[in-house]
């Protein structure tokens, strides 16, 4: 393998790997700037937990943007649903197994409500969801007026945002002392699954005589990605193990990625985004798809609201402020196209990770908040410019 080969392969797949390269660069810079603090197990665990609720929102937002809409209401909806959860648990003392499903259902209903005028009357989603933004903000204030910030002490609930998956092996056994064995096991399984499915996809492509990347390139790719997975696993295992937030995030990303790529529903969503008129004439109900996508956005807002409330162990009157913009930024960094029909779920998750790494790293470095905003803005623009320009150059 020559350098030229590598360059060629990189150029060809730059869109797919660009995000990972950006993440790698950002992480390296922060690691150097913080003398390694950024890569400490504790901080990696922290970063993953912070990313959770934004990644979950970004996943839902990806589909919303894919069908050429936008949802501004998700931030305060998440905040409001967090408050509802807190009221349910701490004031009404309802059991958690009742509260969480109820809040999730409430999220779906809220999403459907926002999109009803969009789907049925053709009202622009910007306006409909701006109305939602105002309304949910009002509801959030209303539900916290008497009490102010509502603390939540339910241990199961608090674990969602702060706890880790249990380890079945004792922590200080002779075998790998100080490491979280279940996390390691899961990481190992993930690596095996990744390599296996990649090779299988390649074999299938080959059987159709499609182009596949050359073997040495493949090995490099597998080694790099497995290495990254192993690294993160190792870090997480070194500090309490994988958090529940990470588990929830990965489950959400996994399910949505599968839906978007493999199912009829997913195909219909991307078709509506690609050309709504053609989709309608192909027998796809655009309004039904719109309702479903916004319904899912509402559901994920509820998940994000729960994760956030659990992380803070409370629900306050400003919870959820600006989440919607963070989620939109993450989705765009992850390569969603505003023209509709284009955008990967996994891309948006990596986008969220990039975005939150910036925030986390700059906090560690003690960068002033005003400067942080400016830098994040710059990165957003750069990411989109990168995306647009790599989309154009097709050679």
């Amino acid at each position, binding site marked *: 393998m020559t350098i030229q080969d590598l360059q060629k392969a990189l150029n060809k797949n730059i869109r797919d790997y660009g995000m990972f390269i950006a993440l790698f660069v950002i992480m390296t810079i922060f690691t150097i700037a913080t003398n390694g603090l950024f890569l400490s197990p504790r901080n990696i665990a922290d970063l993953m937990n912070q990313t959770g609720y934004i990644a979950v929102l970004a996943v839902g937002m990806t589909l919303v943007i894919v069908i050429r809409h936008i949802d501004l209401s998700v931030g305060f909806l998440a905040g409001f649903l967090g408050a509802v959860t807190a009221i349910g648990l701490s004031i009404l003392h309802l059991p958690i197994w009742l509260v969480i499903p109820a809040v999730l259902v409430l999220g779906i209903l809220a999403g459907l409500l926002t999109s009803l005028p969009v789907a049925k009357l053709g009202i622009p989603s910007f306006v409909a969801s701006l109305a939602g933004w105002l309304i949910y903000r009002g509801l959030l204030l209303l539900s916290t007026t008497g009490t102010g910030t509502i603390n939540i002490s339910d241990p199961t609930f608090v674990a969602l945002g702060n706890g880790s998956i249990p380890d079945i092996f004792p922590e200080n056994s002779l075998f790998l002392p100080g490491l979280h064995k279940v996390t390691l096991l899961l990481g190992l399984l993930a690596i095996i699954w990744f390599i296996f499915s990649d090779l299988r996809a390649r074999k*299938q492509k080959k059987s*159709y005589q*499609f182009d596949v990347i050359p073997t040495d390139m493949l090995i490099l790719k597998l080694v790099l990605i497995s290495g990254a997975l192993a690294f993160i696993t190792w870090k997480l295992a070194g500090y309490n193990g994988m958090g529940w937030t990470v588990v929830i995030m990965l489950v959400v990303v996994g399910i949505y990625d599968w839906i978007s790529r*493999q*199912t*009829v*529903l997913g*195909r*219909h969503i*991307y*078709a509506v985004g*690609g*050309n709504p*008129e*053609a*989709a*309608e*004439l*192909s*027998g*796809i*109900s655009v309004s039904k798809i719109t309702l479903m996508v916004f319904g899912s956005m509402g559901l994920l807002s509820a998940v994000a609201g729960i994760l956030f409330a659990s992380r803070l162990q409370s629900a306050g009157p400003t919870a959820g402020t600006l989440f919607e913009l963070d989620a939109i930024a993450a989705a765009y960094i992850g390569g969603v196209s505003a023209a509709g*029909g*284009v955008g990967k779920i996994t891309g948006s998750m990596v986008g969220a990770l990039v975005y939150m790494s910036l925030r986390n790293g700059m906090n560690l470095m003690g960068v002033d908040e005003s400067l942080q905003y400016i830098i994040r803005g710059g990165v957003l623009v750069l990411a989109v410019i990168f995306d647009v320009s790599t989309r154009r150059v*097709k*050679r």
Partner: protein
Amino acid sequence: MSPHILEMRSISKTFPGVKALDEVSFQVAEGEIHCLVGENGAGKSTLMKVLSGVYPHGSYSGDILFRGEVQSFRGISDSEHAGIAIIYQELALFPELSVYENILMGQEITKGLSVDWNETIKKATQMLKTVRLNVNPETLVKDLGIGQQQLIEIAKALCKDVKLLILDEPTAALNEDDAENLLSLIQDLKKSGITSVLISHRLKEVIEIADTVTVLRDGRTICTLDRHKGEVSETLLIKNMVGREINNIYPPRHHKIEDELVLQVNNWSAYSPKLGRAVLKNVSFKLRKGEIIGIAGLMGSGRTELAKSLFGNPDGYEIEGEVTFHQQKNRFRSPSEAIKAGLAYASEDRKGNGLILIQDIKSNITLANLLKISRRGVVDANQEVKHANEFKAALNIKAPSVEQAVVNLSGGNQQKVSIAKWLFVEPKILILDEPSRGIDVGAKFEIYTIMNRLVELGMSIIMISSELPEVLGMSDRIYVVSAGKIAGELSREEADQEKIMHLATQ
């Protein structure tokens, strides 16, 4: 012979997986009408895009000499500046703007900092006269027919100081009358010294109008024929384009139409709230099993509206009347209901209503019937590729693989994908709206052959078409639509061009 105004020498252009142009040479004499013909995907549009700077200097190899000078256009504005105007296969007008705004778009007449609207309207009126279009310059472009829009495009081009006018399939979307009109305009322009390059799949008009014809095949120049030496004939053109002879482009059909009525429409009327007028008035017709009926009529006469109103009414017309579909009185409330019942509609507007351009061939073909290749809601990717490949082979869709994005296909190959999509649905009744728009003779023959095979298998076809030879050649019966009404019904035996045009202009 006059000197060459344009010479393109050994032009090559490659896209990923496709060599679109391979050492093409192309020469146009000053003041002539030069036709460029070739199969779908032969490279005609690409060659013209190279010439006009859409593909900038450096992205292709070879030389362009225009008016004796080597040119290296970096964009359309460069070539426009040199005196080359190109009108694309797809029109590029602003539907919501008026005729005069469109004509002077990009070359506004200004007074100080502001646009001088009076001068603009005056100039536009003058240009309208040149192209012999009799409309009020204040009309919005969206209210004009396609033929008129085409003329607006030409007016727009003529505003600039054009030496060479390139028209990429200008007549594909026009009916005979509009096409005639356009061709005679081009001949007038020739008299006033403008050289034209015309791309067309309608060989009749090529023979009628061209001084010289260049044939491309698979990205190579096959030959250049001179009409004045008597070298241009339909058989010769077809032979050079396709590489074999096609004697009868309407293949004969040997089967009996059954008596069973599969579709019966009675007193069907539709009112469009958006347009604020009735689009269909008391339309009645019937269709038998195994029959092909042709629906002829002028642009805007209501043929497409009729098809869409039957196909689940996606445009939200207010409808009165009765349909009997396979012995059941049934009015479909959405395209999805219609598709489920076995009705399919391949739209005339493949870009706007037919295809999802950013997606690949296979996704477009399977879109309307994903359930066929999925189990419990999960799409079987292998099945999808398999089916798509079958259609690619059957319709001879030119692309490196079915994973190619449809936006990268030539116009005619896009049309094939949009037809394949509806064949994949396996409908009982197939409505084809302008099925052969923009496709080459070879592909037409393929599509007609497929139509024949389908009706032999018991399917019924409604073919809407503005091309009279096609209507006459393929239909068992013909309905002529005029101003939203059925103006008449003709059997295959009694129909001819005059009768149809007579009914259509009633």
